[in-house]
């Protein structure tokens, strides 16, 4: 965008540059950008925004292009629904990893949601403001603990504990999908708690006063009045927790066993949870393993790994988007910051 010399003289003539000179011409454009129509805040923030969007688009495009060979080799259904992954035989099927991801995340939510929502109800409906804030701070600190720390605790404490717990089922070791799920439950608990609490606090106090005024007990107020109104926010909290569970890598990596090609005989069988012969692999633990480094240089193998990234991105992205929409619909108190490392 070039400015006309006349205009620049006019703009530059205000403070230090008194005459129409080449120097004024150099200074001119910058002055004009300072005007109201080209507010620097506006175009700089637009640039940041565009850059962020470009990153996402670039990431998707890159993964898509890089994974093309495997889609051609296996076919879309063959890759997504294939049950066998042997890179030395050029066989790539992702289903066992999708299955592992689903089971681990489901276990995490089943354990974390009742606890997290329960804690949120207590904090929001029972606790006076000061302890509530202390509790909330503590829970949010918990969300900031690096996941590798959780992983170490998982190896040291959870694996042996699960092993003893499952003794009656004759487990091989403490490396099971259940172990990964329980560990994830601990990790997503802060996310569930803090976002649920935000959703509950978002329900106007007048509603509570009205309910109590009508003679409802505290419990009835919480369960019948506050919870239903906060429901979209609660669902959003759960979805955000799910997003974190899907993407979590290193902690799960350390306790899940990382056994390839494990699918249950029956889809609803509980066996994979309790037998480490049925320990599994999630999308993230596969990506976090050594194959990612091995694959570089072999276009097909690399494409298969890039495909894992694409599937994972689609899963997490989809869940996060639904969660974000629900948060917005529920009033969006507390903003949208997934508690990640």
């Amino acid at each position, binding site marked *: 965008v070039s400015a006309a010399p006349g205009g620049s003289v006019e703009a530059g003539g205000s403070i230090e540059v008194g005459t129409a000179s080449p120097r004024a011409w*150099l200074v001119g454009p910058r002055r004009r950008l300072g005007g109201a129509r080209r507010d620097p805040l506006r175009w700089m923030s637009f640039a940041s925004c565009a850059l962020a969007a470009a990153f996402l688009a670039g990431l998707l495009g890159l993964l898509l292009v890089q994974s093309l060979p495997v889609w051609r080799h296996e076919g879309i259904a063959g890759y997504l629904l294939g049950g066998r992954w042997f890179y030395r035989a050029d066989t790539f099927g992702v289903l066992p990893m999708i299955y592992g991801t689903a089971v681990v995340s489901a276990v995490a939510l089943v354990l974390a949601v009742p606890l997290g929502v329960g804690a949120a109800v207590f904090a929001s409906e029972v606790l006076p403001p000061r302890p509530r804030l202390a509790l909330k701070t503590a829970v949010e600190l918990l969300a900031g603990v690096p996941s590798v720390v959780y992983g170490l605790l998982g*190896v040291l404490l959870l694996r042996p504990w699960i092993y003893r717990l499952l003794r009656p089922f004759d487990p*091989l*070791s403490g490396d099971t999908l259940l172990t990964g799920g329980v560990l994830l439950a601990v990790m997503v608990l802060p996310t569930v708690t803090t976002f649920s609490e935000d959703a509950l606090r978002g329900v106007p106090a007048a509603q509570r006063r009205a309910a109590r005024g009508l003679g409802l007990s505290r419990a009835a107020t919480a369960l019948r009045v506050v919870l239903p109104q906060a429901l979209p926010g609660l669902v959003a909290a759960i979805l955000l927790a799910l997003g974190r569970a899907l993407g979590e890598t290193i902690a799960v990596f350390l306790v899940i066993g990382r*056994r390839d090609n494990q699918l249950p005989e029956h889809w609803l069988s509980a066996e994979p949870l309790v037998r480490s012969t049925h320990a599994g692999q999630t999308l993230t633990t596969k990506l976090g393993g*050594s194959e990612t480094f091995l694959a570089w240089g072999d276009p097909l193998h690399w494409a298969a790994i890039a495909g894992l990234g694409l599937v994972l991105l689609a899963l997490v992205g989809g869940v996060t988007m639904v969660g974000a929409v629900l948060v917005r619909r529920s009033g969006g108190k507390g903003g949208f910051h997934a508690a990640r490392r």
Partner: protein
Amino acid sequence: MSTRNAMNRLGPLLTIGFALTLVACGGGSGSGDKMAADPSGSGTADGSAVLRVNGSTTVNPVVTKAAEILHAERGMNITVDTQGGSSGGIAALGEGRVEVAMSSRPVIGHDHTTYPKVDFRPVRIGADAVALAVNKDVWDGGVHALSRQQTQAIYEGKVDNWSAVGGPDEPIVFYDKEPGRGTWEVFAHWAYGNPDDAPLVSHLEIGSNEEGRTKVSSTPGAITQLSFAWTDRKTVFPLAVVTDEGQTVAPTPATVADGSYPISRQLLVITDGAPSPAAKELIDFLLSPRGQQVVRDAGYVPLAAEKGVAATGETAAAGTGAAAASAPAAGS
């Protein structure tokens, strides 16, 4: 003021332009030999010559580290490359493209027929050994050795209880080293002759040596392939190997160093005839206590048992009998 402002603004542009010009010129003139400092390439120990090394990726970390130390302390210029692995290194040496080859396999007849005029002189700098490490209860249950056939049967899942190989009635939990690890390659070489021939099986997987030791020591009935240096005989126990000839060989620094323990490979550096002064300086360093410490730091077995170099805790503790007598140090 404004003039200077303008210059300041132009400054970076000028600099970038200048740098680009330099890069362009450099690209043009440097298109020949990258290591133009010494076109002859013949090694002399005066510090300015370039010593060229090529070969095995297994040996590479040791020699690269040694090259860094020698460059920092004595100003030696050593280029280390890994094109073609062990065979690539031997070929490069045979064709006179390098002064030193790195190899994790011995020089074989084929090399001599391909390069009849070359006097291959291998020097052993250490060994890479893999133990079949088991949980304490397996060891206490009476399993102290496995043959190759037994190991294959376990690896392929045909045998899934320790009682089948003389141990307690307890399921076998096989933790497989993840693919791409040198440890796995050594194991597959021994068990199946060639990693490409190893069966397509899916076991519980482990990555680092730390993880392997932790999981095997905490899981009853567990076995894994573990880098030899990590078997401490307190939490995890290295099994002996019954060779195809029927001999039982336990992994000790001595049996690893002399090559009688089969799940191992020698780490070699090879010269053509007597080494040049620079090559000799490198090899002497690799054989010195400090060089052997580099070998140990890279996770390999130094020549401690053979050369009388002081052994540190891990290696010594892993040995049996006389080799273990040297006092464990807190070193590594």
